[in-house]
């Protein structure tokens, strides 16, 4: 077990939540302001990576709680179904649509199918980074175990 820095640990915890919120903001604001699913996903992934550097894989798993491959799968399904849905509505796939409602207290809300598509992209990016982190960690753990195990191959 490597040594932990309490300062790093605490700072990362503070920054982490802010970074996740930022990533969500970028995800939803992305269609009209700088941002988007890819950027949002990268920021969330970077936040998770920081968490990983500070606390190891257990810290990341503690936050995420679902297998990383689920992110990949759900993300791809969400994006693909948006593409299929738009294909059904018009001749071209990913010809995005917009819907507007007026909701009490919040005011006018505009939701485009592009945002749903972007959510899929976001999930895939996060899932990829999580998968990579998990894979590296598992391999490292296996290697350490093999090094300790006298009968194992060197």
């Amino acid at each position: 077990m490597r040594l932990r820095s309490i300062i790093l640990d605490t700072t990362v915890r503070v920054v982490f939540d802010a970074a996740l919120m930022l990533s969500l903001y970028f995800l939803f604001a992305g269609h009209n302001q700088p941002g988007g699913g890819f950027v949002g996903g990268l920021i969330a992934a970077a936040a998770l990576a920081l968490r990983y550097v500070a606390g190891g894989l257990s810290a990341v798993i503690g936050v995420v709680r679902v297998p990383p491959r689920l992110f990949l799968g759900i993300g791809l399904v969400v994006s693909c179904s948006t593409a299929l849905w738009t294909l059904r509505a018009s001749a071209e796939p990913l010809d995005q649509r917009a819907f507007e409602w007026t909701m009490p207290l919040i005011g006018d809300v505009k939701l485009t199918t592009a945002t749903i598509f972007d959510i899929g992209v976001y999930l895939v990016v996060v899932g990829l980074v999580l998968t990579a982190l998990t894979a590296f960690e598992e391999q490292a753990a296996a290697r350490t175990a093999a090094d300790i195990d006298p009968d194992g191959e060197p």
Partner: protein
Amino acid sequence: MLFALIVLHAVCGTVALVGGRRLGRSAWLVGGCAPAAAMVWSVVDRPSLIDDGVQQTVEWVPALGLTLDLRADAFSALMLLLVSGVGTAVFVYGWHYFGRSTIGPRVAGLLTLFAGAMFGVVVADNVLALFVFWELTSITSYLLIGAKDDEREARAAAQHALLVTGLGGLVMLAGLVLLGQEAGTYRISEMLGADLSGSAVSGAVVLILIGAFTKSAQYPFHSWLPGAMVAPTPISAYLHSAAMVKLGVYLVARLAPVVADIGVWRPLLVTVGLLTMIAGGLRALRPFDLKQLLAFGTISQLGFLIVLFGIGHPEATAAGCALLLAHGLFKAALFMVVGIVDHETHTRDVRQLPSLEHGWTPAKVVAVISAASMAGVPPLAGFIAKEKAYEAFVHGSGGDRLVLVAIALGSVLTMAYSLRFITSLLRPDAISPSDSPRAPADHSPRRMFLAPAGVLTILTAVLGVAPGLWSGVVDRAARALDPQSSASLKLWHGFNTALVLSLATWVAGALVFALRRPLSVVQNRLAPPVTGDHVYGAIVRGVPRFARRLTAVVQPGSLPLYAGVILLTAATAPLIALASGDAWSGWPEFVGDPAHLPIAALLIVGALAATVARRRFAAVILLGIVGYGMALLFVIQGAPDLALTQFGVETLFVVVFLLVMRRLPDRFERRDSRLGRGARLAAAIGFGAFVSLVALVAASSRTSPSVSQTMPEAAYTDGFGSNVVNVILVDIRGLDTLGEITVLVAAGIGVAALARSGRRTRRDPARAIDTPTGEVSA
């Protein structure tokens, strides 16, 4: 109706396959429904089929204009009668042959699917649809030849057949597409009116014929067919005599009206067909395995058919139609008899054959009649077809006479191997004398087992005695291909040249058979040392060997070498374009914005420092600084999306690098020679210089206004967003993004799998036993 029948085949086949063992023997009933229905339909609906033909268009993807065009004319009807009729007989036969064997249901299902694919080829009007069905027959044939998948020989033969016919099919596809482009239509019925000429069409013809030759086992692609005889006999009787191997002939016949006037068509077909007819006939005189004998006989007869349909003679076309049907009848029956012998005595090798006495008479009668039809003996269907073929060439030009001589020679061989086949069954000692007397066979076949072959043989005899029964069908089929052709089939034409030729053929054939001992010595002397099997084997072994050597050269495993090659290519390839064009438009403004200066300094210092850093960790951090510097440049240039992405990527990049670096030594090794370092330095400087140059030129060489000018507005009206970059990603180029995230998912799965596989070899004790070192971890 056409489409419904194809669907019926698919459904019946799938049910038989899925039902598998639960269905047991009744899989043959389920599967047999489809060809039986096709047969009933083609008999009942015969008048409309042969008079005007049947057309059907199935809308598939209307938005893309994809339709499935089906069309059956009189020639298709002839093929359908053959395919579904023999098919139904084969299903009855297979029910007895496989009994309660475990592979029976699978074979039944695959045979049904195969019959459906055959049906599809014969009624497809679009050449691309024809290709799809064509390849489906190749695939089902592969699975059927390898039906006994626990036998190595069967798997090898299946692979051989698939490689040859599949590759031929791909070559044919290229030819069909070329032909379709030249003709301006992919529908065979519309190609007839197209004006086709030129070298592109000649090329297309050669490519298509290669496909036909591989499928119909013509020389030099014949070697897969004898190998395919490892398949259970019902499969050989159907696929490799009556149905699938006729597809090449079918394609030649079908396309002959369209492309017969193209220069290469006739010479190529007649040469290959005659070569195959004679070489196949010679090879059929040698084997002791009865199925091999029939296989080479089939190759020979297919060559004959190719000549008849390829020469473009109206009468020859009519003779071809007659022979197509006659050959299907007698060859399927002969295969069935051999299968029965094999099934009851467990051998089909003349040298081990027991003497077939008690209760074998019906089987022998069937074999004799069918073989006589094969040899062209009256009054059988084969005689009528062969007589018609002789007649077609007797009255022709000098070239036709030459072809006639070759055909007569082939027919002499056919007579000889027919005699050899009969003698093998009736008096095996005459072919292969054995010291000890042969034991009589344990038991004889049951009546019902022989019934399908019997029905086919009765048809052979009836069609021979009463040619009027099939004269009309053959006549219409020939007319569908060539309006000038006509076929009035008769048993007795009077004492004419064709009959004299036939008589001479029988005598010569009998002579060749009688002189088989001395001839076989000569034949063994003359036989070419290299057979098609050898060539195939050499290719199959040679390709992987070549690939291994090539891989060893281009993938030596040295990372510096890969990087060097990539960088030098990237540096020099654009340079060629730069040198050849007049792209240089002078230096741009040296300092665009004062804020660029500190960032440029940061970038340069960071990059230089990364190259001289001794520790890997430091180098990674310095590279990260370069990346952040780039992001700052984006910010200043007003590209916040790009900058955000760059920041995110750089952060992740540093973290992933750190993860990897736990495996690597802390410091870079310095084992390079001075020369090696010099080369690296040169590659790096060269790459940097050229990339800078290209960037300078590219930035100043715009000739037309940027497409991005109209995008901000389009983004809001079409994509409902004011962030152009994002709208491009999710809408305008949305499919690209979808593709990219699919790649990301694949990469994620790959990373996880790689990490797992690395772990398992170390940890899993069960796998450790299999490792070459043989060490077993505790």
